[in-house]
C-alpha cells in the first residue's frame, strides 16, 4: 500500500486499479515488474520497476582487467553475447591503435551476424508464444539449435561464449565451420518461409499487431529507441551503416526500414533483418582469408589515460561502451549504454490507451532482455 501512495501516477480514480505484471510472469521474459494502472481493460499508465537482476557489472568492471571484462559483457545481453564482446574489443584495439588481422574481422562479422539471426529466432518464438500461437516456440527454437551446434564446435559452448578477446579471437575456427554454416543457411532459407506462413500472414496476428503501440519517429529519437524498434518507425539508426566497423563497410546489405511505426512494422523489420544477415554471411563465408586468429598483444593490457567511446549494433539496438582510463590495467570507469534500458523508457509512452493484451504484444515487439536493462 505504501507503494501506491508514493506513486506519482495520477490520483487513483474511481474505476482505476493497479495490477502487477511480474516479476514472475510468462511474458515479461525475465524479471521485470510492471506496475500497470488500468481502467477496465485500458492501460492508463505504466511504471517499470527494474533492478531484480542488478549485479553491479559496472562496479565489477572497475576491478577487472580488460580481458576479464569481456566475460562480464556476455552476461548483459546474453542473446547478443558476441556483439557485446566485440564492442569492448573494438574499444581496446582502437585505444591501443592495434590493427587486427583480416581473418579476425571476417570471423567476428560472421559470428555477429549468426548472433543476430539466433537472437531474432528466439524473439520470434517468444513473440508467437506470447500471443497464443504456442507452436511458434518449438519451430523457432528447433532451427536455432543449428546455430548453437555450430558455436559449440568452434568456441566450446552454446551460450555465453566469450570468444572474442582484445586483439582477435580466442582460438581459430573449426574446419567444419564453413560447411556447417552453409548447411544452416540452406535449411533456414526454406524454414523462414514457414515462419511467414504461420505468423506474419495470419489475419489474427495482423489484427493483434497493426495499429498497436505507435511510436513516431520524433519520439523514437527523443527516447533514444534504436535498433529494429527504431527502424520500425522510419529512423535510420543502424550503426553498421552510420559508423561501420569490422567488415561492414565492405559488404553489401540493406538497412531495413519501415514507416508504419506500429508493432507489425517492428516485427517485419526483424523478419527482414534475418534475411539480410544471411546475405552478409553468404558474402563472407567463402572468402575468409588465411592468417592469424589474433594480433600480438602484450600480456598486460593498459589503455593510455583518456576517455573512449565505442558504438556497435547489437540485436536489440545500439550498444555504447564508455571507458575512462587512468593508465592502469583496469578501467577507472566503464559505462554500458545498453539498448534494452533505453527502449524500456518508451514502454510507458506507447502503451497508454492500449489494452492489456496489447501490452504483451508491445513488450514483445520491443524485444527487451532484462539483464540488459539491469546490468
Amino acid at each position, binding site marked *: 500500500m505504501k507503494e501506491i501512495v508514493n506513486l506519482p501516477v495520477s490520483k487513483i480514480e474511481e474505476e482505476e486499479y493497479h495490477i502487477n505484471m511480474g516479476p514472475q510472469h510468462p511474458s515479461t521474459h525475465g524479471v521485470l515488474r510492471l506496475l500497470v494502472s488500468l481502467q477496465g481493460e485500458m492501460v492508463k499508465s505504466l511504471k517499470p520497476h527494474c533492478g531484480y537482476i542488478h549485479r553491479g557489472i559496472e562496479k565489477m568492471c572497475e576491478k577487472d582487467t580488460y580481458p576479464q571484462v569481456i566475460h562480464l559483457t556476455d552476461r548483459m545481453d546474453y542473446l547478443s553475447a558476441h556483439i557485446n564482446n566485440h564492442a569492448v574489443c573494438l574499444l581496446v584495439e582502437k585505444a591501443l591503435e592495434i590493427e587486427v588481422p583480416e581473418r579476425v574481422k571476417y570471423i567476428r562479422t560472421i559470428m555477429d551476424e549468426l548472433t543476430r539471426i539466433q537472437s531474432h529466432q528466439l524473439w520470434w518464438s517468444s513473440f508467437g508464444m506470447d500471443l497464443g500461437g504456442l507452436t511458434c516456440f518449438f519451430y523457432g527454437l528447433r532451427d536455432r539449435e543449428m546455430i548453437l551446434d555450430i558455436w559449440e564446435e568452434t568456441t566450446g559452448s552454446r551460450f555465453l561464449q566469450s570468444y572474442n578477446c582484445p586483439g582477435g579471437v580466442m582460438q581459430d575456427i573449426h574446419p567444419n565451420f564453413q560447411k556447417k554454416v552453409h548447411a544452416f543457411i540452406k535449411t533456414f532459407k526454406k524454414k523462414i518461409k514457414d515462419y511467414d506462413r504461420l505468423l506474419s500472414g495470419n489475419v489474427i496476428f495482423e489484427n493483434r499487431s497493426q495499429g498497436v503501440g505507435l511510436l513516431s519517429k520524433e519520439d523514437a529519437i*527523443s527516447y533514444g529507441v534504436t535498433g529494429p524498434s527504431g527502424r520500425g518507425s522510419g529512423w535510420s*539508426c543502424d550503426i553498421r551503416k552510420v559508423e561501420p566497423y569490422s567488415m561492414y563497410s565492405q559488404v553489401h546489405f540493406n538497412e531495413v526500414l519501415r514507416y508504419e511505426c506500429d508493432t507489425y512494422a517492428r516485427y517485419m523489420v526483424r523478419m527482414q533483418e534475418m534475411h539480410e544477415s544471411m546475405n552478409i554471411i553468404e558474402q563472407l563465408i567463402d572468402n575468409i582469408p588465411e592468417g592469424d586468429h589474433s594480433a600480438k598483444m602484450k600480456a598486460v593490457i593498459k589503455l593510455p589515460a583518456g*576517455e573512449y*567511446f565505442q558504438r556497435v549494433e547489437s540485436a536489440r539496438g545500439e550498444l555504447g561502451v564508455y571507458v575512462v582510463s587512468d593508465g592502469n590495467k583496469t578501467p577507472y570507469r566503464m559505462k554500458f*549504454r545498453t539498448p534494452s534500458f533505453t527502449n524500456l523508457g*518508451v514502454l510507458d509512452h506507447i502503451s497508454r490507451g492500449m489494452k492489456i493484451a496489447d501490452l504483451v504484444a508491445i513488450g514483445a515487439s520491443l524485444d527487451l532482455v532484462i539483464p540488459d536493462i539491469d546490468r
Partner: protein
Amino acid sequence: MDNETLKARILEIVPEAQLEENKQYLTLLVPAAKLHDLAIKMKDTPELAFDYLICLSGVDYGKQLAVVYHMNSILHKHMVVLKVKTDDRSDPAFDTVSDIWRTAEFHERETYDMFGIRFNNHPDLRRIFLEEDWKGYPLRKDYVDEVNIVEF
C-alpha cells in the same frame, strides 16, 4: 560540421566552456548553471541539431563528481561530448535535461541511484535498480560495503 566550427558555435553560446584536449570526440566542460540553456540551444539550432542523446553517464573523478553527455545529430552526423563537474560531494545537483531529450529520464535516475547526483526538475527522481531504502551510492570511489563487496 567539423570540430573547429562546432567548438566556435558552442563557445559563442557559452563562452565559459573549456575544451578538453586529445579526446576521441570534441569534449567540452561546461559550467553547471549554463547546461540547460546550452542543451536547449544545441537541440533547437538548425546548424547544430543535436536531437539524439546517446549516453548520459556519471563519473567520479576522485574529488569531483561529473556527468558526461554524449550527443549526436541525426541530420548532420556530428558528435559532441559535454561534461559538467561539481566539487560538492555531499549534495551534488545539476539541471535535468529530460524535458529536452526524453531518454534522459531513465539515465538520470540511474546516475542518481549510483552516484547520488540529484537532477533539478526531474519528473520522477527515485532509485531505479537498488531498493528505496538503500544507504550509499555504490559507484562512488569512496563507497564501502563490507557485506556485498569482497576486497582481495
